């Protein structure tokens, strides 16, 4: 299918991910919100590293910064690094089993969250609650299903 169509599908998932990242949830569920943007960037860079990589990570991170009202550049920096590391290792990661990828996703999200905390705490004092890290587990739980769903989408719309 045409290039335009591929990008259309990819950008639709990006928009959905951005919406999901700020979608209002009840307070007790808020901490369990999966890190949709990390999952989506991870998937697309893994699947199409020649289309989606560092620049996309940067722009998406910047949009997320604006949406969340955080200091500009925080998510942009981390997402572009994430995209970079996945895009240099995608050939290896593709041969991972599902369990291994899930663990890798958890690890990447942990690193992202720690760096976000570190960046933010360099600006001001922060009280860190332990439920800040709960979303790692929900993201890992969701990842297998998310992966199959995205693969279905990619094959259904012949995104390449």
């Amino acid at each position, binding site marked *: 299918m045409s290039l335009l169509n591929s990008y259309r599908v990819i950008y639709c998932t990006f928009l959905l991910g951005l919406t999901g990242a700020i979608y209002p949830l009840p307070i007790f569920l808020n901490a369990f919100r999966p890190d949709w943007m990390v999952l989506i960037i991870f998937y697309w860079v893994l699947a199409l590293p020649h289309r989606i990589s560092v620049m996309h990570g940067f722009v998406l991170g910047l949009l997320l910064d604006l949406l969340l009202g955080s200091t500009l550049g925080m998510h942009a920096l981390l997402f572009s690094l994430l995209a970079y590391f996945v895009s240099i290792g995608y050939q290896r990661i593709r041969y991972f089993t599902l369990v291994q990828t899930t663990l890798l996703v958890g690890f990447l999200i942990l690193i992202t969250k720690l760096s976000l905390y570190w960046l933010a705490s360099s600006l001001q*004092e922060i009280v860190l609650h332990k439920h800040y890290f709960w979303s790692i587990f929900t993201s890992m739980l969701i990842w297998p299903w998310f992966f199959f769903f995205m693969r279905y989408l990619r094959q259904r719309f012949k995104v390449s």
Partner: protein
Amino acid sequence: MKPIFLRGPSFLLRLSIVIAFSVLLFLADSQFNLFASSRLYLNSLVSPIQYVADAPQKLSIAISENLLTRQALKERNQQLEKDNLFLKADRLLLTQLQNENKQLRELLNSQRNFSYKRMITEVMSLRSDPFTHQLLIDKGASDGVYLGQPVINEQGVVGQVSQVGSTTSRVLLIVDASHGIPVRVQRNDIVAIVHGSGAWNKLNLPFVQSNADLKEGDLLVTSGLGGRFPAGYPVAKISRFNYQKGALYADVTATPVALLDRSRYLLLLWNDHQFTESELSLDLESEDVIAK
């Protein structure tokens, strides 16, 4: 597919450019606040996504309001009418007090204007940055919202506008660690500054003399010093007052009087007589410090 070997260096190059750019943005935004004016356009850029994300909840609220029974509506109407009656009765007294106050102030030769322009705004309950305490509201520069505008609800001060978009704005709450607000104790007019602590229900009062006459339960109201918040709105109640013998300052914490995390409607205030920097000293003389 392009050949693999051509991609190596360009990736690294792109990464370095992007990293340099991000760090630059980060520093420019956090240290030098260079985006204060362009945030308006940047925020307007993403506000469609915010409206889309907010839409389902708004819709469900609208539907549930439409599906109220006649009985429930009647009851609510009655309740509101009762409340209205009480409020109107209070207001009768208030007008009288206001006139009296004005006369007294004229006698003292110190006038104070009360600003009356205000606007109701709805909170868009979207997720915000987990490290700061802020709310998104559905009014922006096109409604006249400005940077640093005071925001209250029916209980007390909520915060101030920290970022303005054309149709949305962000409100920095008083509990955010970077927020400070000048207050005075309602009982005896001691002035202090309330700093956010970063926790939802705790505020700090640094630099309070350890022999200051403060008690737990004292109400802190805005003092109007600094010129950003109009004077007289309740901010917090003192929850703890501790001091060590010989220490210069006491350890004082307070809890905000407004329920910050569960208010759906907020009020934006227009502070008509904002002081400019040069007038600040004048303000100190004429306002609350001498008032006692």
